[in-house]
């Protein structure tokens, strides 16, 4: 039955009253709306991309010619450490999970994430980490031992002072933020999908986010153990995890770090693969080729990603038999990635796609990423890796992978979903300038680095001698970096201009198929007026006579529909908490605990004490009023209380 217009209008008003935040700063601070949190998460992470980019530009300026004295070793080491830490921990992982936190609910037809207050807590914890690292950089106490912080260099003996402590704790904040985001994405995907969205109908974007969330759950604890527990304890209370003189072991660090560090790459890469499918589907106007193959590729990639970490340690004295296994695993992982690329090209094949900016970035991804993938397979070879390891060849490889495989799809995604988030489209002409300059810039910067690396240029050097002959290619790379910077500036100008006066987008400007396009742009506070009902993999393309929806959720509280894990059958109605200050408060408490731990254990005790208050407040404010409830008992009976 078609819903009458006046009912729709009344319900929209009631829902907005329940779901929207208070006006003003307090409302902004205490919001638990996943869309507000998601937007500021993406914006903060993008700001970190710009910050990391500025650090990269400074490094490129220093390396433009041999023997340059623009930046000394002390500053340079802080810059490359902050660059790596920012890009990996404060940009790439957060922006990918943030895209998930914003879009997963929209794509599965949910009004919010499973744990909205936890979501806000995650963002604010991350925010504390961002502020902490950048205050340190300007206070000349930024970490200077690389984003990998190998002991004993990062240990108390060779890095006195607080620089490494800053690193260890910045990582802590990102770990917490990523872990709570992962739990949120997993439970949202498992339990809050619109009725009818069985496992085999989950959008590939969401599949990618789900797989990555599981990867975070198993990868992040490793670096948390390494940095927050072991390294910080070695430094603060003289533990001996990494002190060979007392039976500690410096290679233990490399194992726990890379057990996280290699999956990390796929934690960045797989969400980007999730962006690509809907973009290709939309602009070819056809369902993607090989849905099942793509899902399985995601899962196998995630699985193998945990079996590769030793390929970062081929130059260390570990048994050669073990190394061979890791070589084989590192090569096998090329297969699922190849399968994905095959499926996308097959989808594009003869489709006469619309060459919009999002699709251009996808093509740019193929052009650039495949190069990085191939050098990745090369680096899996122990013999070759011993030449290339820790040289500019690896710098080239990883930037081809991360810029090609992560950032290009991300830019495509930003152009693609910007209209949904803001209601306005980005400018296509500026977008094309952005795309071409970025593509040229990336290749100009990083292609020469392959040659530099094999010509003997190690990573993380603040200068080099003229006699090495590395000057020309370094100059080329620096020119490339300027090109990249120009392209990003064009993008920022485009964003600012489009926010003010961009073309209005409407609900579904690209004629795309996902549920996120079934609501207004930008989505209202309650996201969906009615939870959609899904009958296929492409809900909006499958619509015949009106979008089928679910009715019966309360308009008097923040109620959402919870469905069963496999088949997404309607199961119960769950009430979500409203805005709350406690997430912010607890995030600040975490700041006191972890930043304070650098200076005195008493800060830890004090911080935990005030956290206790926060936990009580969180629990108390979440209890909610006593009202009539329909309780489903474990034996199946329903009792009204």
């Amino acid at each position: 039955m078609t819903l009458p217009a006046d009912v729709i209008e009344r319900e929209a008003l009631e829902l907005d009253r329940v779901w929207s935040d208070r006006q003003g700063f307090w409302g902004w601070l205490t919001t638990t709306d996943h869309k507000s949190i998601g937007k500021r998460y993406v914006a903060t992470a993008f700001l970190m991309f710009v910050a990391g980019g500025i650090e990269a530009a400074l490094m490129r300026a220093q390396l433009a010619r041999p023997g340059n004295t623009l930046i000394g070793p002390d500053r340079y080491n802080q810059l490359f450490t902050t660059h790596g830490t920012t890009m990996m921990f404060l940009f790439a992982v957060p922006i990918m999970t943030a895209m998930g936190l914003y879009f997963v609910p929209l794509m599965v037809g949910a009004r919010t994430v499973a744990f909205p207050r936890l979501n806000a807590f995650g963002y604010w914890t991350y925010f504390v980490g961002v502020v902490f690292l950048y205050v340190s950089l300007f206070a000349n106490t930024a970490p200077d031992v690389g984003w990998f912080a190998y002991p004993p260099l990062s240990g108390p003996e060779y890095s006195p002072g607080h620089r490494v402590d800053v690193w260890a704790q910045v990582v802590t904040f990102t770990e917490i933020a990523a872990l709570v985001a992962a739990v949120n994405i997993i439970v949202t995907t498992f339990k809050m999908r619109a009725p009818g969205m069985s496992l085999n109908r989950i959008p590939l974007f969401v599949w990618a986010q789900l797989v990555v969330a599981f990867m975070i759950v198993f990868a992040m604890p490793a670096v948390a153990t390494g940095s927050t527990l072991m390294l910080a304890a070695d430094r603060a209370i003289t533990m001996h995890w990494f002190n060979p003189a007392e039976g500690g072991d410096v290679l233990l660090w490399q194992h726990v770090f890379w057990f996280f560090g290699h999956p990390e790459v796929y934690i960045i890469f797989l969400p980007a693969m999730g962006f690509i499918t809907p973009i290709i589907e939309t602009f070819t106007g056809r369902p993607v080729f090989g849905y099942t193959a793509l899902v399985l590729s995601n899962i196998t990639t995630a699985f193998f990603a945990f079996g590769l970490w030793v390929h970062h340690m081929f130059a260390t004295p570990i048994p050669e038999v073990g190394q061979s296994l890791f070589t084989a695993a590192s090569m096998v992982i090329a297969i699922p990635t190849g399968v994905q690329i095959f499926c996308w090209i097959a989808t594009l094949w003869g489709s006469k796609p619309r060459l919009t900016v999002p699709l251009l970035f996808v093509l740019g991804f193929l052009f650039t990423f495949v190069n990085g993938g191939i050098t990745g397979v090369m680096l899996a070879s122990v013999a070759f890796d011993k030449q290339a390891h820790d040289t500019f060849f690896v710098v080239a490889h990883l930037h081809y992978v991360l810029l090609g495989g992560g950032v290009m799809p991300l830019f495509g995604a930003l152009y693609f979903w910007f209209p949904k988030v803001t209601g306005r489209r980005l400018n296509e002409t500026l977008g094309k300038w952005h795309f071409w300059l970025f593509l040229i810039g990336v290749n100009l910067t990083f292609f020469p680095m392959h040659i530099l690396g094999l010509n003997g240029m190690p990573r993380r050097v603040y200068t080099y001698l003229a006699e090495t002959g590395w000057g020309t290619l370094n100059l080329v790379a620096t020119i490339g970096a300027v090109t990249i910077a120009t392209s990003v500036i064009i993008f920022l100008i485009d964003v600012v201009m489009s926010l003010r006066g961009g073309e209005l987008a409407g609900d579904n400007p690209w004629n795309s198929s996902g549920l996120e396009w079934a609501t207004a742009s930008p989505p209202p506070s309650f996201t969906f007026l009615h939870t959609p009902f899904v009958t296929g993999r492409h809900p909006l393309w499958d619509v015949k006579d009106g979008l089928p929806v679910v009715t019966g959720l309360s308009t008097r509280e923040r109620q959402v529909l919870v469905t069963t894990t496999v088949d997404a059958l309607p199961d119960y109605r769950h009430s979500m908490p409203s805005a709350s200050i406690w997430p912010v408060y607890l995030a600040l408490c975490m700041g006191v605990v972890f930043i304070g731990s650098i200076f005195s254990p008493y800060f830890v005790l004090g911080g935990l004490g005030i956290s206790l208050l926060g936990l009580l407040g969180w629990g108390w404010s979440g209890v909610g009023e006593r009202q009539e409830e329909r309780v489903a008992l474990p034996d199946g009976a329903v009792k009204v209380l």
Partner: protein
Amino acid sequence: MHSAFDPHSPQARAVAHLWWSMFAVGGVIWIAVIVAMLIAIARRGDVDFGGRKRGLTIFVAGTGIVLATFLAYDFAVGHDLAKRGAPTLTIGVTGHQWWWEIEYEDLRPSQRMVTANEIHVPTGQLIEFKLRAADVIHSFWAPNLNGKRDLIPGYASSQWFQADTPGVYRGQCAEFCGLQHAKMAFLVVAQTPTDYLAWRTASAAPHTPPADSIAATGLKVFLSSGCPLCHTIAGTDARGTVGPSLSHLASRQTLAAGTLLNTRANLMGWIVNPQALKPGVHMPAIPLKPAELNAVVTYLETLK
């Protein structure tokens, strides 16, 4: 002089061959993907792949075969590199922040010899390097001769190569090791066995007291200032082990771990203000009067 593209040992050559074959195959694959992508978007005629799964199976099988071939080749190279006879010479290499300590072992104590930042090896012989780290992790890498190997506190490791042709090959620390990681280079000087023996004999020769009076003054100044606290000159009372050994310093080509050419002017500049040339280096500036400096440098230049 410093490139994996220009191999001068069987070890480096095997890896270079591996690299060029990977480069060729990888290049073909890359071009194939780009061409496929361009055809896909340019192609007219609404060919829909949907439903044709056989292409995917063939693709996976093809990828598998290429990877398996590559894997087999890689294992073969790895096996060859690991297989080696008994080394004719064993050289100890210890990584310090930021220089290399080089130790030539010998059963005869008089022939034991410690030097720094410059490794002389005979050509045509397999040389083994015993690698140790004195402080943090470093990595020993001379790309023309072989891949790198980490020097890790608490672990013993080794690397080896057999230089084909005489020449000077540059190497550099490849694992970030702190402030002056960038200026922690070394030279491998490959010499014909005859030349090598001559060098070895000269380098193990005992210290000859300087004949020249300025140089003699230089030795006195050297011993009475802070120098011997860190440096050794074999045959004198200077027995410090914190910094590189200066025995036969004048025979070396570079100063400060490959940072500067070993010239009189550079040596003077280095002693007066090492921090300007290698900021953060553990050597302090040595306050010497001009005459003293002149004497010390004159003396050091006699250490052929």
